[in-house]
């Protein structure tokens, strides 16, 4: 299984050792300046070193460059050897051999013009390769091939004639190259998935095939077109031609994107010159660009139609250089910072920028560009908009990311390098809700509905590109206030072999949209519009359609408003889904069936009860209300010899993280045995086992006083006396039904059972007391004192901290519950403490970098899996800064490194627990940690293929267990909680009710399966491990311990469950497996249905 940390003893950190002489030798001036620089510029030398390492990793090696150069030379000679062809009509493509298809969607087909192939006038390498800024893993070398003037005629700028000639030109080259042995593959692709711009991809033969891709761009001879024809307000596609009508239509709508696509080809060379002049004497630019490209790649911004490409970012750096926001002295890291700073503060969709230096009055001005395009960044020629295909939403996403990254870089507590450059941000993990548009062909009807004919013409018929900006802005308006960001994936079309038809527009697959919420407003049920008599009211009504209605508000105004229907919190979280579906249907003609909305697919596993009533948030709130009431009653209890100083909950439900919060219950007497004398009920042997009622544990601190005895045995007695007295007083003064015991008192209140445990703050100290022979009183931790401290000190603190966290992040609880449900579904809930999972999830909320804190349980859960799969537990402590109470983070790290071997496998530090990691001390073991990691690794594979199978994530693999013990469902009290809800359920002897006062005490904390597991572990823990999903699992999985199964010599202390036998005339002990398998049945009499021994798996 894949594992996050490398194995081997050498792979863990050792504390650094420098001899005294080395530490204190006089520094050289160079060293001094270097140390000083790292101290000032970077937060630590670590960041500097990390960046250096990263650059080493992504830059191209010299040896490879030589190979690539040789490859390019050969291409050059081959190109000039391609024969000419006779002139034919553009539509007559019979001269092309069968092995190649024109890489262009020729719709409509008929077009005027004549074409012949003439070998290129010039071949030039352009782009990042020459600048030395191309980075691994994809090394692309752009080669511009100049098509000679002879090929072109007048008016080639019109009606895609230029584009088709270009495509034919490439097709002819492709056809010839496909026969050459030099190439490993010859393929077509669309440049940045823009179907007007096909390019030819060439890869070398043999093992170097993956090394480099040469991209052949065809471009027109210089001076072929008059630039003024392509100003953003000019038309170059005739409506009559596009619609295949004979009569010319009136009006010529501008075709800015079409124009831009031609202009781009004319300026390839001048851009290269511009960039190379910017890069001279500027070593930091190369590094900075590499970092920026990595940054973009990790955020999935650099590929597809309308991407923020590496070329674009190079031009941006050149712009900043021109504006002196960057100077040539800067290092790569500083270039990265300055560029991000600029992106964070400048909105190119409102105030565009231009690289054009001389102000030529004939050139279009920025305003012209703004009218034609959403995002404006004009190139040095003043003609081309470099961001022509980018949507405003995509730029906002870039801006958002830049802002976030600047925050991270300025935060000392975050490992900026990891967050900025090493963590990838796929949409599923980055956005709170994600939905897919399954059938993009539906966007055709969107274009019709929104009357986007001109845009379609401009985009050469690409309905996806034409409709996308409008759909996104529609959603943006509908979700304004709720969503911080409405983003979309970039349409991407993969490359294709030259003998295949070019991909259609629908081949972009599904389009993904991501929503990032403002947690405060995302779930509001009301959309308040303008007052009814205002002129904007009409606009509001048309936007929301039938959903809009007049409402009278408390301030007596009558307004247009939309009210969304949602009863529970989990439905409220899905209001954005209602909005999206409604608006897309209303304005874009996209049917609901084409939208696959994955906002709450997983939440069904934490639903309570059989009916889809919600995901338990409401139940949690009512538990806490009841608890608050009880604690008030306790404080005000009269006639208690000592007063109650504090009441603290420790049960997970009291910090919103119980997977299935308790529901008020009232027992049905007929399905229990009664114990009249003591006023309580017992489970009955004949009936199915009663539903599980979890006791909600509460610590009740009593006032310290001289009356407390200072002896541990006596304290126990006094506590028992308090339990008795509490029960009596609660019954007398508040009519609550109680059941006292030695260590606690159970209180039945509002249908819940609370378990009160009295605590005395000095008790742990008394347990620790040791008197040395010299008579000195010392305090030493014992197992007992540690346990007690955990219970009455640390757990209440954790509970209240996490309770606070829930107030800041309303989805913390649900995320945590999903995470715990997953752990338990993997049968590992007994192998890892609940608190440990709570802290892992808290980490996601407190240290979300590079993301924002999750605003939906699903995204939180996916990040939890990612955290499990990728965190390097071996070399790093996980520091959870609860209540921001930590400042000396570095100290923890250093101490951790020094003591690694003695610390738990998963080390979690919190402000109140910096050195001991108390919640992971005993559990999980190293094996459990490894299997958790490998299980978490499996999950993203599922989620990248779509979230449709995510429920699969919750079904555990049972293949590798040795024995399966199948249980009788009627004795599993939590059967209803299982992932796949049982079809048939049993009457569990309870009804939902919270009003009853005088009742017999119900059966509490009785779970036969847990009793059984306890007995199994007591008896066979030397021989086997037992795994069970405590939430209604029907199977206990058993794994033999291979070491214990090896025959061993007889030892008195090691005879448990074994028998003596002779092996090779020697007496040895082996486990008595047959008898043990029968013991499994004996011990679980009435609970066990069958024991399935998978003997075929045993290799012992």
């Amino acid at each position, binding site marked *: 299984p894949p594992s996050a*940390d490398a194995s081997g003893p*050498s792979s*863990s950190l050792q504390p*650094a050792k*420098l001899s005294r002489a080395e*530490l204190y030798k006089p520094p050289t001036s160079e060293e001094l300046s270097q140390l000083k620089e790292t*101290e000032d510029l970077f937060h*630590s*030398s*670590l960041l500097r*070193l990390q960046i250096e*390492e990263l650059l*080493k*990793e*992504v830059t191209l090696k010299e040896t490879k460059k030589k190979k690539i150069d040789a490859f390019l030379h050969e291409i050059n000679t081959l190109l000039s050897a391609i024969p000419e062809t006779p002139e034919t009509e553009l539509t007559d493509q019979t001269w092309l051999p069968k092995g190649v298809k024109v890489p262009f969607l020729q719709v409509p087909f008929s077009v005027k013009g004549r074409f012949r192939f003439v070998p290129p006038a010039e071949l030039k390498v352009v782009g990042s390769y020459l600048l030395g800024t191309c980075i691994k*893993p994809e090394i692309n070398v752009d080669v511009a091939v100049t098509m000679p003037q002879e090929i072109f005629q007048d008016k080639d700028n019109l009606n895609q004639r230029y584009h088709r000639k270009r495509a034919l030109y490439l097709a002819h080259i492709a056809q010839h190259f496909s026969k050459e042995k030099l190439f490993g593959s010859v393929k077509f692709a669309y440049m940045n998935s823009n179907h007007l711009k096909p390019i030819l991809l060439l890869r070398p033969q043999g093992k170097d095939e993956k090394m480099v891709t040469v991209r052949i761009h065809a471009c027109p001879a210089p001076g072929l077109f008059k630039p003024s024809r392509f100003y953003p307000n000019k038309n170059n596609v005739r409506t009559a031609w596009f619609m295949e009508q004979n009569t010319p239509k009136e009006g010529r709508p501008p075709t800015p994107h079409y124009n831009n696509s031609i202009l781009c080809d004319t300026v390839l060379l001048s851009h290269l010159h511009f960039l190379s002049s910017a890069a001279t004497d500027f070593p930091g630019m190369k590094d900075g660009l590499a970092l920026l490209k990595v940054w973009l790649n990790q955020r999935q911004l650099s590929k597809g139609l309308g991407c923020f490409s590496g070329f674009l970012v190079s031009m941006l750096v050149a712009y900043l250089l021109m504006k002196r926001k960057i100077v040539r002295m800067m290092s790569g890291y500083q270039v990265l910072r300055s560029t991000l700073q600029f992106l964070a503060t400048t909105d190119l969709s409102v105030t565009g920028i231009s690289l054009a230096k001389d102000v030529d009055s004939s050139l279009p001005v920025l305003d012209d560009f703004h009218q034609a395009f959403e995002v404006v960044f004009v190139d040095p020629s003043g003609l081309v908009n470099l961001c022509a295909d980018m949507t405003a939403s995509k730029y906002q996403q870039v801006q958002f990311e830049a802002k976030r990254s600047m925050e991270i870089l300025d935060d000392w507590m975050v490992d900026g390098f990891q967050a900025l450059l090493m963590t*990838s941000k796929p949409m599923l993990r980055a956005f709170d809700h994600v939905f897919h548009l399954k059938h993009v062909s539906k966007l055709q009807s969107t274009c019709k509905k929104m009357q986007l004919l001109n845009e379609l013409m401009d985009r050469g018929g690409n309905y996806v590109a034409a409709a996308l900006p409008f759909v996104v802005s529609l959603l943006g308006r509908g979700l304004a206030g709720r969503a911080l960001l409405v983003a979309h994936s970039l349409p991407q079309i993969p490359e294709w072999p030259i003998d295949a038809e070019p991909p259609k527009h629908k081949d972009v697959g599904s389009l993904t949209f991501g929503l990032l919420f403002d947690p405060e407003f995302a779930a509001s049920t009301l959309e308040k519009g303008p007052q009814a008599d205002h002129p904007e009211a009409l606009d509001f009504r048309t936007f929301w359609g039938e959903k809009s209605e007049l409402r009278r508000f408390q301030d007596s105004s009558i307004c247009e408003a939309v009210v969304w229907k949602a009863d529970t919190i989990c439905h409220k979280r899905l209001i954005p889904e209602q909005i999206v579906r409604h608006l897309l249907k209303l304005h874009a003609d996209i049917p609901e069936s084409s939208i696959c909305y994955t906002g709450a697919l997983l939440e069904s596993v934490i639903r309570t009860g059989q009916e889809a009533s919600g995901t338990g948030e409401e139940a949690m709130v009512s538990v806490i209300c009841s608890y608050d009431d009880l604690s008030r009653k306790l404080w005000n209890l009269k006639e208690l010899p000592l007063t109650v100083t504090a009441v603290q909950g420790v049960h997970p439900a009291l910090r919103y993280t119980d997977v299935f919060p308790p529901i008020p219950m009232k027992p049905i007497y007929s399905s229990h045995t009664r114990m009249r004398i*003591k006023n*309580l009920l*017992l489970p*009955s*042997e004949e009936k199915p*086992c009663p539903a599980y009622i979890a006791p909600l544990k509460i610590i009740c601190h009593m006032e310290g006083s001289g009356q407390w*005895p200072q*002896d541990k045995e*006596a304290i126990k*007695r*006094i506590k*028992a*006396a308090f339990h008795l007295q509490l*029960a009596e007083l609660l019954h007398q003064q508040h009519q609550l039904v109680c059941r006292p*015991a*030695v260590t606690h008192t159970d209180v039945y209140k509002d249908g819940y059972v609370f378990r009160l445990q009295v605590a005395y703050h000095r008790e742990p100290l008394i347990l620790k007391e040791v008197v040395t022979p010299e*008579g*000195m009183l*010392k305090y030493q931790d014992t197992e007992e004192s540690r346990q007690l401290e955990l219970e009455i000190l640390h757990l209440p603190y954790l509970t209240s901290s996490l309770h606070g966290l829930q107030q800041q992040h309303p989805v913390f609880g649900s995320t945590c519950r999903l995470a715990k449900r997953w752990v338990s579904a993997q049968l590992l809930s007994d192998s890892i403490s609940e608190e440990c999972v709570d802290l892992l999830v808290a980490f996601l909320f407190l240290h979300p970098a590079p993301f924002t804190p999750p605003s939906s349980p699903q995204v939180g859960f996916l990040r939890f899996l990612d955290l499990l799969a990728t965190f390097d537990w071996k*070399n790093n402590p996980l520091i959870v800064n609860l209540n921001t109470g930590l400042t000396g983070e570095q100290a923890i790290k250093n101490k951790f490194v020094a003591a690694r071997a003695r610390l738990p496998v998963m080390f979690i530090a919190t402000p109140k627990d910096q050195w001991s990691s108390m919640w992971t001390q005993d559990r999980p073991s190293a094996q459990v940690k490894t299997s958790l990691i490998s299980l978490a690794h499996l999950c993203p594979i599922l989620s990248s293929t779509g979230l449709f199978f995510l429920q699969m994530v919750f079904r555990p693999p049972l293949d590798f267990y040795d024995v399966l013990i199948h249980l009788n469902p009627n004795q599993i009290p939590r059967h209803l909680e299982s992932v796949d809800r049982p079809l048939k359920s049993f009457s569990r002897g309870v009804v939902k009710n919270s009003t009853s006062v005088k009742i017999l005490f119900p059966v509490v904390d*009785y779970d*036969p399966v847990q*009793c059984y597991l306890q007995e199994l572990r007591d*008896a066979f823990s030397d021989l086997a491990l037992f795994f069970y999903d405590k939430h209604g699992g029907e199977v206990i999985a058993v794994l033999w311990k291979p070491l214990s199964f090896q*025959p061993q010599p*007889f030892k008195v*202390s090691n*005879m*448990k*469950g074994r028998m*003596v*036998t*002779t*092996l090779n005339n020697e007496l040895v002990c082996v486990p008595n*497996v047959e*008898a043990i398998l*029968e*013991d499994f049945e*004996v011990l*679980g009499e*009435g609970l066990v249905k069958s024991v399935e021994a998978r*003997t075929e798996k045993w290799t*012992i």
Partner: protein
Amino acid sequence: MAAAKERVVGAAPAGYTALAVKFGERQRSPHYLLVKEHQVREGAGTTHPSRRTLFVLNVPPYCSPDSLSRLFSRCGNVQSVDVCEKPGPVEKKEKLKSKFFNRKTVTGFHVAYVVFRKPSGVQAAKALSQEGPLLISTETHPVKTGISKWIASYAASVVDQEELKAEVDAYMQDYDKKIAEEEAKAAKEEGVPDEEGWVKVTRKGRKPGLPRTEAANLRVLEKEKQKRARKELLNFYAWQHRETKREHIAQLRKKFEEDKQRIALMRAQRKFRPY
């Protein structure tokens, strides 16, 4: 698994006898108790006299002392049965075993000491190996396991309030009496020199001494340190200044070294591939 190999059933190491034991009629494969005469080097205690005591190893979890005593009663009168987690000298039986506090039950596979009234019982028990497997649960004496056992123990966990109250009160009375006696004794000795003339200083009395605890000792040390630190002048002399600077550089170097090491490790783990 070893199941296929041939096995000598009921083999036992030297000195032991293996007794097959099954839960009930229905079970097919027995467990094997290993029994031998209990022997201790330094004179056997009174609880487990050496010739009359049978030491039993590998007692299955569902086999309680009562079942054991019933199983071995046919070999002779059983005086007592003691079970414990692992073999070893048995601690003295606590005199007043409480019904509610400090109850420890033996779970899982355990060992047992069966004391017969007569030594012949031990020999008879060893001879049982010749007969068929012993049955723990029979029709006349059924042993509860599974659901019925758990329901029974749930019922047993319900405490009787009056009884608990009475026990606690009795214990606390004893305790109070004990404390009162100790205090009276201490008060009597207060300030009275012993035979060598030493006077014991306690926290009570007119001149209370420092408590002899670790925390108090540390507190005193800390105070001393602070006092010394207050007197010291920092960065006063030139050499002190130099020293601080040197120390600063050394710190930076150390950190640099640590970072380099970290990087080397990360490089080895290919942590720098952003793809």
